[in-house]
């Protein structure tokens, strides 16, 4: 019969195994979010530019990234980057680059939808006031678009945090890896995987609750 032994679950486990992984997972989430939004906004603007030279590469990039499994994208980057720069890079750095590039495709679609949710009259009004494209985007469209995007955007960040566990494929030390190594060292894989599930659940569930609360607050009433 099964008996769960959680005696190993103490502060030492957290400091020795989990903290490092947790910090990397959070780091990866934050960097990929910030980098993904920056790169994604550029992609979205390219896609909406109406100029073939900008539009098609952006669309191709977004569609390609969205149709490949994330695990394969992680493997691709881990294989290709060392070939391009001529020297091996660590799994951690490779994971960070991959996630920025991958998330950018998803954030691009969110930003595009956000920009399109701003009524066209806003653009016309800005043009009538003599604003340039840059001023229009920076002062009129994007501030409203970003506000409209916040709900979808927060959902995407939660998904992103969950997805960071896939760096398992290249052996980067994230939260899941921390649990796995602890499980191997204590000889208790069942308990550590159960704890990993509970930990991820608590984090993601709290985040989604928080997202719902923020969502109610920031909605623009028209």
């Amino acid at each position, binding site marked *: 019969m099964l008996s769960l032994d959680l005696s190993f679950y103490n502060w030492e486990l957290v400091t020795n195994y989990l903290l490092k992984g947790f910090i990397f997972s959070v780091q990866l989430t934050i960097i990929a979010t910030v980098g993904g939004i920056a790169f994604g906004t550029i992609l979205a603007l390219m896609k909406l530019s109406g100029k073939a030279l900008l539009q098609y590469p952006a669309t191709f990039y977004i569609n390609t990234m969205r149709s490949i499994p994330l695990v*394969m994208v992680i493997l691709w980057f881990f294989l290709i980057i060392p070939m391009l720069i001529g020297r091996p890079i660590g799994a951690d750095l490779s994971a960070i680059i991959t996630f920025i590039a991958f998330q950018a495709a998803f954030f691009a679609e969110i930003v595009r939808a956000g920009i399109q949710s701003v009524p066209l009259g806003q653009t016309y009004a800005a043009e009538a006031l003599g604003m340039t494209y840059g001023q229009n985007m920076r002062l009129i469209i994007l501030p409203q678009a970003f506000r409209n995007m916040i709900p979808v955007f927060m959902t995407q960040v939660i998904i992103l945090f969950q997805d960071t566990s896939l760096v*398992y494929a290249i052996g980067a030390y994230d939260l899941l890896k921390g649990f796995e190594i602890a499980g191997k060292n204590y000889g208790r894989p069942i308990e550590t995987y159960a704890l990993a599930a509970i930990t991820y659940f608590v984090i993601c569930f709290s985040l989604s609750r928080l997202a719902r609360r923020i969502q109610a607050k920031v909605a623009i009433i028209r």
Partner: protein
Amino acid sequence: MALDFGIFCKNTLDGGVVDHCFSSILGLAGNSDPSYLDWLISAWGWTLLVSGLGLAIAIVLGILMGALRTLPDTKVVYQWLLWFSTCWVELFRNIPIIVQVFLWYYVIPAFIPPLKAVPSFWLVSMALGFFTSARIAEQVRAGIGSIPSGQRAAATALGLTTLQTYRYVILPIALRIVIPPLTSESMNLIKNSSVAFAVSVPELTLFAMQAQEETSHGIEVYLAVTALYALSAFFVNWVMTVIEKRSRIPGVVSMSPDAKLAH
């Protein structure tokens, strides 16, 4: 750097060129030693098998849970079912898929011993199915929510029971509405099936990792695997488009604003 796809005609044991390179695709004479192409095709088969099983589980459970989440809270039983389905969705939506795969592989068989005898691809299908069911349930719930409330009221007025209301009035419309989001969830499921590598199901991603290491022709191997994933996703997309067209009710395009105006 030139691509060398000849690697797929080499056998997996000593790297010699095999006699019948495309035998596995054309179904002709088999090779005495399997080539990388044979291995690739069988890996694709595993991906399709795991995804197919997972999709079946996900659609059945997803529709059920999505429908339960929209029950009226008039009876105690319904309140329990509402609570249960809400917990279901929150639970399976907030744990990363790879962690769920480990749960099914290590943790759940420890509690339910008969599962220890179940092959690992089944466990991965269960994990994928349950994970995706939570997402489909949300789509179904949204689909049901978009149906004008007059439909439900009319069904009640006709004396239909709750079960009959769902069976004959709500679900036939809601399921047609959710086909497009269901398509993208199905494609996501195929992509997510790549996590099966973590418990050594010999599917495409595991093939990619192992063949890349053995042959050091990573680019060719990854290109082939990526193309097969894309092909599988396009196939699902096409099937769903056909289903959407076939199931369309003449005259009822959708429960669009026009239809709502009639109320």
